[in-house]
């Protein structure tokens, strides 16, 4: 009897213990959520690794914004323009500040998905350089404020790649010498196809289906050489020597990094130049706060800290002057005029071409369209199997039934 009581008491104690922990956790999570419910929260949707988060000793931009204004920032990231578009279009999530690139801004304007900005609230936009105003994607300069820009270049591991730097061109990604050492863009159809268009010396804004198909075929041919499709891990993989070559966006990482093995080159034959800009979607719930956020980001004091971490090129020369001169004067980061004269910006393509681009890209990712017959065969086998079992059972049941009758 005594024993049982002891056990029961023990059990009760344990139960209470677990319950207290659970209740505590529950209350804590509710409390945490209530806190963010009380304040206004803006949803900021940015590229991955595209803001200073306080990790390199620079200012944590979002935290500073929260501190100064009391507005909470819910910061999430995406991998490419197309998934940003999908998320805006195909889910009922409401974002307040987004950072699309040039051609996507044009597309969003065309589809009437972003709102005109109130430049009275974004006073700091006046610090943006003239050459970035009224760009071709936003001719009236009403929808976007440039955030960063850069070009696509080739990152390589100096130990593995022995071609001289001047000779590295886009066709190096098709060089069988580097089999299993080549990285490719994971997600962006435009960037991936642009690569083989550049290799074929075609326009990256081509609207000819034949050109695109040729480019896609090149990509399919390239597949056996590829190590993996990655996005932000290029530096890890090249730095460690797991891979040798990757196309990626120009980034001051190369200047800042202590890893001597990583080299960067922008091919002389031409490349893509991109501008990422800040926009506010039409269905944003907190447009005023979104403008405040954009204004905050444009503030040169903040931008210096931010760009120092993000390491893309800044459209504000005020900011560039205050950056680490090693970065600000580096031709690797800020490409020379010669390169810029040969670089093209993506244009927004018509809808049907866009769909074709996406489908062709997906085709290259899945290694072409084939195996239709086999699939149908497998389906048929499955269905047949199902029915044979059903029929077999049915017959068995009838036999048993007959047995019972006897």
């Amino acid at each position, binding site marked *: 009897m005594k024993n049982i009581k002891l056990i029961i008491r023990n059990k009760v104690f344990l139960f209470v213990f677990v319950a207290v922990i659970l209740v505590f956790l529950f209350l804590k999570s509710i409390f945490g959520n209530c806190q963010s419910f009380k304040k206004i929260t803006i949803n900021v949707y940015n590229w991955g690794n595209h803001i200073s988060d306080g990790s390199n000793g620079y200012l944590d931009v979002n935290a500073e914004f929260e501190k100064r204004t009391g507005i909470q920032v819910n910061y999430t990231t995406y991998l*490419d323009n*197309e*998934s940003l*578009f*999908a*998320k805006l*279009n*195909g*889910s009922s999530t409401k974002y307040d500040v987004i950072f699309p690139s040039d051609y996507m801004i044009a597309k969003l304007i065309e589809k009437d998905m972003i709102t005109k900005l109130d430049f009275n609230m974004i006073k700091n936009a006046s610090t943006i350089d003239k050459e970035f105003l009224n760009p071709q994607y936003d001719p009236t300069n009403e929808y976007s404020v440039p955030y960063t820009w850069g070009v696509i270049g080739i990152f390589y591991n100096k130990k593995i790649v022995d071609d001289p730097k001047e000779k590295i061109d886009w066709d190096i990604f098709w060089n069988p010498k580097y089999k299993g050492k080549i990285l490719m863009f*994971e*997600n*962006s*159809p435009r960037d991936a196809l642009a690569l083989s268009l550049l290799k074929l010396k075609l326009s990256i804004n081509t609207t000819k289906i034949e050109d695109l198909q040729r480019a896609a075929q090149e990509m399919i041919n390239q*597949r056996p050489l*590829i*190590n*993996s*499709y*990655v996005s932000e891990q290029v530096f890890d993989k090249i730095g*460690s020597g*797991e891979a040798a070559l990757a196309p990626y966006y120009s980034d001051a990482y190369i200047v800042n990094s202590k890893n001597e093995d990583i080299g960067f080159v922008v091919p002389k034959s031409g490349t893509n130049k991109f501008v990422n800009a800040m926009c506010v979607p039409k269905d944003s719930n907190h447009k005023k706060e979104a403008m405040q956020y954009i204004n905050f980001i444009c503030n040169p004091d903040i931008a210096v800290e931010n760009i120092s971490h993000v390491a893309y090129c800044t459209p504000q020369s005020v900011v560039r002057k205050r950056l680490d001169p090693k970065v600000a004067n580096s031709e690797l980061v800020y490409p020379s005029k010669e390169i810029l004269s040969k670089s093209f910006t993506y244009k927004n393509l018509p809808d049907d071409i866009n*769909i074709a681009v*996406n*489908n062709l*890209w*997906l*085709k290259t*990712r*899945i*290694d*072409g*369209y*084939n*195996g*239709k017959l*086999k*699939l*149908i065969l*497998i*389906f048929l086998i*499955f*269905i047949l*199997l*199902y029915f044979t*079992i*059903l029929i077999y*059972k049915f017959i068995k049941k009838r036999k048993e039934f007959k047995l019972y009758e006897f």
Partner: protein
Amino acid sequence: MKKRVVLPPYIFWLVTFVLVPMSLVVYFAFTDKNGNFSLSNLNDVFLYSNVFLRSIWLGFIATSFCFLIGYPTAYIISRVNIKCRKFLIAMIMLPMWTNFLLKTYAWMTILEERGFVSCFFQFLGIGKFSLINTSSAVVFGMVYNFITYMILPIYSVLIRNDRHLVEAAQDLGANQLKIFLKVTFPLSLPGVIAGIAMVFVPSVSTFVLSKMLGGGKDLLIGDIIDMQFLGSVYNPCLGSAISLVLMILVFICSGIMNQFVKREERTVIAL
């Protein structure tokens, strides 16, 4: 009296959050972008046949590996004494309770070219050995992540089996192998089939494994569906059509499985 009050909310819930969404999938699968009826999506699904084939094939390999590893494990566990059994089951449950992505992430670092496994093989003198970014790594991830679903149902069936049957067979002069083939294995069949279903379905439809372990080279159906909805190739109608085909495939499979399992056992196994 009571059932009238109690059930309608639940039925309402089931209809709104299970049946309506599924019919939406069917609806979108049969419409084009402007909302008109069309079969072109279903036609386009077959363009991705090789993705389906690859998923089914990898799922099949993963399931067989799970079975080959899982059955002996379950058998051994059901044979040891009760204390040991508890411990072993807890050990098997342990990885199941850690986050799926964390496990995969850990494997990413372990399987890397400079990672743990490759160092180990180099140490053994076999030479450089890199699994990551191959489809074997994807299969490996599937086996690792889903093997618990194979072990647990087999184990729960084995443990409920009547020991006396084995003893009876022994008395009748059957040897170990014969007992296993004629008595134990047939009796554990429901568990095996449940296990196969529970491994095959998630491994066919998994969607981050191939990106994380396979280097994105061998995309599976799950990845394609993801791309159509929230990824780079926005086309929810085609995505729905692909999901519909996947759903049908899974239903056929579970239909086949159901034929083998008696009704009362089904509820047990579903848990």
